[in-house]
């Protein structure tokens, strides 16, 4: 993994953290860091080739970084068990409902504005996930 890119990503995360805690913003440090980092890319303060390799590695293995959180749900298994019907039914149904509502709205608005472009995967050719 390219170390310059990794250092820059950590730097923007730190910047997001400093802003979030300093200004008491209601947005998490990593999301703030992402917004600042994206802005820096557009402003050409950060060149794509500096960060491309490190970003590709981290994004390709992002599911790994969530694993301890999923394992941590085991502490609540007894509580979830007690309220199993309410929790599991509403988790499944509301997640499916949100997925469909959002997906169908995006389709409907896109159709209304007539901005459908040919080829649903156009532009996705350069796959960074390797």
């Amino acid at each position: 993994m390219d170390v310059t890119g990794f250092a820059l990503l950590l730097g923007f995360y730190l910047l997001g953290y400093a802003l979030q805690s300093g200004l008491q913003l209601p947005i998490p440090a990593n999301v703030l860091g992402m917004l600042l980092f994206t802005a820096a890319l557009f402003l050409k303060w950060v060149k794509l080739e500096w960060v491309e390799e490190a970003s590709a590695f981290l994004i390709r293995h992002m599911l790994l970084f969530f694993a301890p959180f999923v394992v941590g749900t085991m502490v609540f298994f007894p509580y979830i068990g007690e309220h199993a019907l309410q929790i599991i039914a509403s988790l499944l149904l509301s997640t499916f409902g949100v997925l469909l509502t959002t997906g169908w709205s995006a389709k409907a608005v896109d159709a209304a504005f007539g901005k459908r472009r040919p080829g649903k995967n156009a532009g996705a050719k350069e796959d960074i996930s390797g």
Partner: protein
Amino acid sequence: MSLSELVHEPLFGVTLTVAAYAAALKLHERWPRIHPLFAASAAIVVLLLASGIPYESYRIGGDYITFMLGPATVALGVPLYKNAARVRCHAAAILAAVTTGSVSAILLSAALVWSLGGSMELIITMMPKSVTSPIALEISRQAGGIPELTAVLTVLTGLIGSMFGPALLRAAGVRDDIALGAAIGTAAHGIGTARIMRDSEQAGSVGGFAMGVAAIVTSLLFIPLYAWLQ
């Protein structure tokens, strides 16, 4: 060094997580229906329960792994930048869909828990579960829910959306990258985004963008709710 001392080393949790993930990825390559995050996490839970190793010991190393989510989320800026032209020409659709989705996430979970006879505390705890966990947790705390349980439900929501979302959406006729990414990013935050990023960089970059917008929209939607819930 005894075994019980060994499991208190950060190295234990780090090694177990990376090894379980590596094995789960191999299974996923062989059988694509197996979700790598689900398989890895389930294997770790079973191992901890079977061996009697406390979760608190595992967590010492697990925290090192989750730390990497910080730089990985920042890294989502790269695909967003590379796909900016496509995202910009669909910006209206994405913003409208994410806002609609964020409102429906709050209303649907509240209505479902209420109709199934859940307590007010459980309703509030469930309401912010579609947004990224640090925000969901903070909203739950301010609104009078159980923040730790909200964090857990947020992770499970992400996992459900990540496991079943792509297939459900395709079956419902939502096939293009823009709508798919918006739906997954809104309903299943980073866990869903990480999953679709493996299929399409474009869908993944829309997912990362939608996740950020949903986080901001949901935080704003809760401001009037705080007063009403007090």
